[in-house]
């Protein structure tokens, strides 16, 4: 297609749903008015993404491929180490793990259901187009004691999450006036800082930056002391990984009245789904968005850009703000795939014809650029990694 005939960019489906959540947070919690289409589309717009159908936008790390049973299977391979698991996924020691064509051929030799089951056992981010989310979108898993906060109290947020969904919720808490500490692991830092600084800066501006060595007991003790002083904790680890780090959410909840603990996972924070890995694009598939687009006449493809991430970030902020206002300590599990399904169901109830038209237009716009959004100016500094470690950890280590 000649460059001057590029089709117009359609709207990102569910951006209007996102915008209504943000409007409600402005009304009820005093959040500055932020635009849903901007939060959902700023990464794609900044990055110059195009709509690419069965390949995810941007780096193209997620692919939708037909399986033997006719169902479509989604696989995200954005870590080289995950490719080492492909021989086990396909039961084939000889597969060329670096070649998407070989991978697609192997997918065709298996049923999607089996690949999803094995893939989840292996810890690969996988999904199929016709699955139903395994967990509730929002799950209050634990409740603890109540804490009444004095008028004018500035809440403290400890953000242990990475990538997009969790940090976006932390960004919204910062927008709401809270003190937000972004905590990164020395051995597993948030790689978005390096790989996509435009997006990183927008959603992490104004946060203090702590770098913690989780093998150092003194630092871990100081971090736990910090968490006991916090009003909100955001984490996006599988519960098992958190336990291996020595972070016991249940115990911290019991010890800390009023603590709001947001557990963001791909497919749920309890039971078997807690061990499954999910990332923005495959979670959108697992949440039924690709099926909805196909049913609306838009064919099989990814909807939006890692769509489960911004939707989840917004929902996590909404739930966190409500929980904080209630004063009751609670751990809230947020399932990215189920949040996509919830947003779709609510948007269909709101205006079925409109969301179907948007999904259809998105699916038919292969080759079109992502919609432009007005770039958000940075209004606060982005702290260098670990710049505030000493300030916060030393202060609390003495308590």
């Amino acid at each position, binding site marked *: 297609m000649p460059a001057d005939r590029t089709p117009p960019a359609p709207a990102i489906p569910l951006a209007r749903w996102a915008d209504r959540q943000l409007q409600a947070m402005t009304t009820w919690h005093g959040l500055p008015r932020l635009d849903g289409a901007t939060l959902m589309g700023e990464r794609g717009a900044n990055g110059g993404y195009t709509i690419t159908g069965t390949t995810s936008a941007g*780096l193209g790390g*997620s692919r939708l491929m037909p399986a033997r049973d006719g169902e479509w299977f989604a696989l995200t391979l954005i870590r080289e180490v995950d490719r080492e698991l492909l021989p086990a996924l396909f039961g084939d020691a000889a597969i060329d793990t670096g070649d998407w064509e070989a991978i697609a051929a192997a997918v065709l030799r298996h049923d999607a259901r089996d690949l999803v089951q094995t893939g989840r056992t292996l810890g690969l*981010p996988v999904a199929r187009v016709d699955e139903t989310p395994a967990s509730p979108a929002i799950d209050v898993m634990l409740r603890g004691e109540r804490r009444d906060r004095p008028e004018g109290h500035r809440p403290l947020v400890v953000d242990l999450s990475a990538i997009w969904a969790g940090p976006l919720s932390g960004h919204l808490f910062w927008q709401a006036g809270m003190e937000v500490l972004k905590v990164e692991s020395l051995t597993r830092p948030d790689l978005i800082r390096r790989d996509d600084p435009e997006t990183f800066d927008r959603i992490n501006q104004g946060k203090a930056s702590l770098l913690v060595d989780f093998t150092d007991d003194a630092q871990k003790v100081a971090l736990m002391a910090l968490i006991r002083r916090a009003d909100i904790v955001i984490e996006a680890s599988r519960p098992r990984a958190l336990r291996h780090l020595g972070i016991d959410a249940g115990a911290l909840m019991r010890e800390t009245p009023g603590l709001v603990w947001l557990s963001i996972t791909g497919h749920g924070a309890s039971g078997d789904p807690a061990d499954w890995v999910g*990332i923005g694009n495959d979670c959108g598939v697992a949440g039924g968005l690709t099926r909805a687009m196909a049913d609306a006449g838009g064919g099989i493809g990814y909807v939006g850009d890692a769509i489960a991430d911004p939707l989840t970030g917004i929902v996590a902020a909404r739930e966190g703000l409500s929980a904080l206002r209630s004063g009751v300590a609670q751990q809230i599990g947020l399932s990215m795939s189920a949040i996509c399904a919830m947003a779709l169901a609510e948007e269909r109830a709101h205006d079925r014809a409109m969301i179907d038209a948007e999904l259809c237009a998105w699916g038919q716009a292969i080759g079109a650029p992502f919609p432009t959004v007005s770039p958000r100016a940075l209004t606060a500094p982005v702290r260098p990694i670990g710049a505030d470690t000493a300030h916060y950890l030393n202060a609390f280590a003495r308590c």
Partner: protein
Amino acid sequence: MKPGTRLKSAACDTEVMVIRAAEGQIECGGAPMGEAKPAEAAPLAADFSAGTLMGKRYVDAAGQYELLCVKPGKGSLSVDGQALVVKDAKPLPASD
């Protein structure tokens, strides 16, 4: 041993999925692992009783073997009597 094969411990509850393997004998708790559980449990060898952790990947020094623990147990993993060790956690994904 074909990648993707699930093996069960004869000595404890451990189950693994084979990620990568050569021709050696894969063991847990000091006893050979198999696709089926034997009728009679094998004794748990004291030298191989440190336990397995769910979701951890276990490797040998030469990188020929890699096993993913899909069900934890009291035994520990070995190949031909050589203990396997836990592989480091994967880095966080950068973007998708």
